């Protein structure tokens, strides 16, 4: 399979939107990491930080829209920006960044910090599954025919290291009626760590604003 070269890349994950939301989410991502890195060394200061966080939460919550209204808002754009893998507005997403090339391959890139740890210094196996599942969805979108995961099979060949650039390459390999087959591999330093294949069934859930469902996730 050919490597993706920079000139061929088409960004498939959200890149533009509300810059302030992205910045707030990036700050919260830093906070998640800082909480984990700090540990219990400084109990007094942690109590102060906890209080400061709760003050921010309280201010954010007052006047926030109801759940239904907020869901309509977040699904109103063409490329939703809140999912748990690539969502730049979601502090829980690393976030994974995915590009597509002319051969139908997509390539996701991510470096995982300590919050995604399973075994010592190794990414949680379920986090690899999350990154792969999402990259498959983007690959299907890129192929023009996407849906929801029906079956996902992963073979873990090597531990996936934290703090190291990871690459997830995926491609739609076939479709028949509403069935879609997708394959891919997660690499660290060029070494295949996780190999996966999946069956998707075409179709998406309706958006909260009632617009026709699209293959945006």
């Amino acid at each position, binding site marked *: 399979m050919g490597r993706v070269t920079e000139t061929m890349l088409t960004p498939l994950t959200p890149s533009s939107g509300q810059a302030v939301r992205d910045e707030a989410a990036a700050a919260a991502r830093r906070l998640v*990491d800082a909480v984990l890195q700090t540990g219990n060394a400084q109990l007094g200061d942690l109590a102060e930080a906890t209080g400061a966080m709760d003050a921010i939460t309280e201010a954010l919550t007052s006047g926030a829209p109801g759940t239904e209204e907020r869901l309509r808002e977040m699904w109103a754009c063409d490329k939703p920006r809140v999912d*748990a893998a690539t969502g730049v507005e979601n502090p829980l997403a690393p976030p994974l960044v995915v590009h597509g090339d002319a051969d139908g391959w997509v390539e996701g890139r991510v470096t995982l910090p300590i919050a995604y740890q399973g075994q010592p210094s190794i990414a949680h196996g379920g986090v690899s599954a999350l990154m792969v599942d999402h990259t498959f969805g983007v690959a299907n979108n890129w192929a023009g025919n996407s849906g929801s995961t029906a079956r996902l099979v992963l073979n873990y060949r090597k531990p996936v290291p934290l703090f190291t650039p990871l690459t997830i390459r995926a491609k739609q390999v076939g479709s028949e009626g509403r069935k879609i087959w997708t394959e891919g591999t997660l690499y660290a330093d060029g070494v295949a760590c996780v190999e996966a294949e999946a069956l998707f069934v075409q179709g998406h859930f309706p958006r909260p604003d009632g617009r026709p469902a699209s293959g945006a996730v």
Partner: protein
Amino acid sequence: MRPNLTDNPPVPHLISQVSTEQGLDAAAAATRRLVDSLLRHGDGPDQPLDLDKLAARIHDLADELDAQAPALDDRMVAMWAQEWTKHDPVTGLQNPIAPPLTFTGHADGWVEAVVTLDIAYQGQPRMAHGGISSLMLDHSFGVANGWAGLSGMTAHLELDYRAPVPLFVPLRVRARQMSVEGRKIWTEGTITADDVVCVEAKALFIAGHLPRPGGGPAPR
């Protein structure tokens, strides 16, 4: 820790830890609330907060914590020093990314957790991301293997998604070790919502764990 089931009355037995409501447990819980409120903050002009200023305040907080943080290697030794750790992304009380799940172990070998997922775990509209289901199941398998007395690392994981997994409703995550042959461990489990099986999964684990930083105690 697994009790000797022949000497003990019927369980459930709490496997996951209980929050101390202070220190890092409380800080992680506050971070979780902040993440949720940030996602729920509206796009409309009537919103109370200037997100620019808010981002700066959160950066300041992260800076203050970073200034207190030990070197990464030291922190790794500390976080792996107890047999029961608190930092994983599924049950970890000290990890803001973890929902977190709380598992109980039962006499018939099953482990079970009930969790309600919010917007941060979304994939399709109102639904949990398929990868979040795999994350929760993979972790529940590790817990089930620990409960059964022999655990290891995931070698093969297969998931069948039968129905969408909804946000905002209680989900039941269940798992049990099926069999062991040498170092090979087979484990199975489900996620159900309102008694509907949404995801079924099974996995092969290979017994054994990577060494812990600082020589901390290995799990069984």
